[in-house]
């Protein structure tokens, strides 16, 4: 990163770094509600990053995109999740399969991998935000890691949504966003998905008396 980077790009890079930081924070966070807050914060940062990109490039659909992010990932989804946690009365700490420090270490390795994988591609990008592609990939991977290590259904969903954030960041950073129709479709899918999941949580709790996914290990072959 040399000094020739314009301010806006520096800003976006900053936001991207914050998103990565938040991803790590989510990985380390034990409490569900805090996790949802972090997720909302991550969405907000993403929204801001998109907004900066929109202002810089002047592309209209990036504004829509930012608006969509704000509506969906900062307000609606966290709200739904929040309601679910309250209604389902999810209490206590989130237990991880692997302890947190180890997870963090693995996360670090993943970030290195992600950066290395993204490096040759970033160099090809002509957008001002190209550096963030590696970060986006890292966020996706960290979200993945979170889904692997967490044992509550709801945290898996948060991880899943965080992954979407990473993807969104990638779309923004590498290409200034996907075509509008696609973004709308993605947003719709995510929304419907979360609603269906919400329904699911109730059914799962009815059937298993818990949202712990360790109860759901009966279908197996060995």
């Amino acid at each position, binding site marked *: 990163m040399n000094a020739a980077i314009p301010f806006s790009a520096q800003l976006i890079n900053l936001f991207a770094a914050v998103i990565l930081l938040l991803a790590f924070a989510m990985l380390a966070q034990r409490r569900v509600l805090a996790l949802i807050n972090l997720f909302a914060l991550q969405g907000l940062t993403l929204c801001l990053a998109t907004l900066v990109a929109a202002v810089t490039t002047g592309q209209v659909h990036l504004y829509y995109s930012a608006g969509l992010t704000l509506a969906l990932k900062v307000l609606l989804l966290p709200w739904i999740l929040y309601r679910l946690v309250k209604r389902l009365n999810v209490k206590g700490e989130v237990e991880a*399969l692997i302890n947190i420090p180890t997870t963090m270490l693995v996360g670090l390795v993943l970030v290195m991998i992600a950066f290395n994988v993204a490096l040759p591609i970033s160099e090809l990008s002509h957008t001002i935000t190209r550096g963030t592609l590696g970060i986006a990939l890292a966020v996706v991977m960290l979200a993945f890691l979170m889904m*692997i*290590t967490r044992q509550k259904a709801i945290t*898996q969903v948060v991880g899943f949504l965080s992954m979407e954030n990473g993807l969104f960041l990638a779309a923004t950073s590498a290409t200034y966003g996907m075509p509008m129709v696609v973004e709308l479709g993605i947003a719709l899918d995510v929304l419907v998905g979360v609603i269906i999941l919400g329904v699911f949580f109730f059914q799962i709790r009815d059937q298993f008396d818990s949202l712990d996914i360790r109860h759901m290990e009966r279908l*197996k072959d060995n």
Partner: protein
Amino acid sequence: MTSLLSIDILLTAACAWGVVGLLGLVAPRNTHFISKTLFPLGALVGVLVGLASLGSLGGPAQTAVLVIGLPDLPFHLRLDNLSALFAMLLGFVAAGISIYAAGYFRKGEGTAPGVLCLEYHLFLASMLVVLLADDAYAFMVAWETMALSSFFLVTTDHRHEEIRRAGFLYLLIAHIGAIAILLSFGVMTGGAGDYSFAGMRAQQLSPFWSSAAYLLALAGFGAKAGLVPLHVWLPEAHPAAPSPVSAMMSGVMLKTAIYGLLRVSFDLVHATIWWWGVMALAIGLVTALFGVLYSTVQSDMKRLLAYSSIENIGLIAVGIGLTLIFHAYRMETLAALAMTAVLYHCLAHSAFKSLLFLCTGSVLHATRERSLGKLGGLIHRMPWVAWLALAGVIASAGLPPLSGFVSEWLLLQSFLFSPGLPHPWLNMVVPVAAALVVLVAALAGFAMVKFYGIIFLGQMREPGLKDAHDAGTWEKFGLAWLALITLLLGILPSTVISRIDAATQQLLGTGLAAKLKEQGWWMLAPISPERASYEPLIFLVTIAATLLLGRWLVRHLYHGRVRRTTAWDCGYYFQGPRAQDTAEGFSQPIRRIFEPMFRMQRHFPTARDTEPYYSVKVEDHFWYWLYLPVARLAGRISTLIVTLQGGRIAVYLMYSFITLLVLLLVARP
């Protein structure tokens, strides 16, 4: 013009069989219609097939291309002399079996008669198409259809666990064999991608690939034919199947495997390498010896015959091996001799083994009993079946003047003239192999005496046997038809060989017909009368004349008085049926002499037993040496692999993650 028609006739016949089979579905429960109309119709088609093939023997090859098949590879059909020979075998034997089946299949035996009729005729049709197929796809389709239809026939009485297991084993090994055959075809295309047989003939493969193709074919066709160690299905499937089906499988289906092996080794692959022959010879010998030994110790009559089929297939393989050896060293006359032996034995075995299996069918119907230990004395109740079975038994024991002896004689002749092979080792080993062949033939006699003596002779071992009845008219006719073929093959070898010689000539370029024409039709002297000759007709006439003359003289000079009383038996008082040898007892010397060949579990009674009994169970070594270890290995791998599906979603996600990471890190364009 007639020669042009043959392939069309055969094709029509295959369709006709299909149609006859489908007609069975019209009224699947109407036993009378199916057995008295459709099966005789099928027999008629069989005769037609036999005659048409007989007519086309010696003529030029005829080809046809059908519209069906793969887009780039429509069904190619070709009727050459080799196909015609085997189609003739199929037609004539099928005719006899179908006629017999018309009287055999009855109500209430598992599968509905209509379905059975469909399966049976599909089986026939597919065998015919196997023989006609001239490309790999058509061949494989027909081959597997044959396996499938016969599988369903084997499991006709599927309510029994062991029959289902037998069927499964059969289909599994058939399938593995089919895979090997497919691979063999693949090798033979030599990467040219032309899967028609013409394309394979055009390939000039290196010795390595030729050998690969040959070995795969040997494995694939060997699995179908029942060569050791892929024979295990045979003694299970044959007893499980209804008798006409056993007859068809043993008599005809095994021969299609021989056909395939001949087709590949002599027609499709050009090179011939001497060790191919040694290999076939060795496997054949082991198979023959194994088959005959196990055949002697069986106590189920159909298993006994099934093992005897293994033995015969082994002998055929020995002949093929010998042919390959001679062919590899360009000793064409001897190769032709051995090849003739092979083809002749195929014909002979088809007829006499079907005959014997059908006889067991009649016995089974009359007594509901397959175990030799519960039969006996049936010659008094079933004279027709007994006397016709005797023809099969003599032929199967390889005794003159019936068909089995001719092929054995030819085989031994070709062995006898093997010195002169430019390979010293072979020179030594081949005659010893001949001795083993003789041992096999002699043991076959033992097995056949056991088979016949225990079923038909002696006292009835169970009281229920008194109600046994002879075969019905249809059945008698079928049996007589096959017995007639056996007799004709036995006493007219020269005539038959001059017909089937066309196939030998096609495969080897030389034949025996020219030599045979120099002598009379009654004389079989393939090389020259001074060196070896056999005149079965004169042989038969001499014995018959002596017999009749002797009888007439004795009656004329003395008297023909007969008195009946109880048996003498050195004056022993107890002469009940239990005093006779059991099936196990009869084979006791064999078990004792060849003890290492068997895996035996014996139970001896002791003095303190309240209910003393003796039992012996003979099992197949190969089962423990080959099949169970393979099954265990597969089981272990499965155990290892199913841990992938452990039920934990986190682990599943991790698989996905690791896959992604590995690909990201490793995969590079």
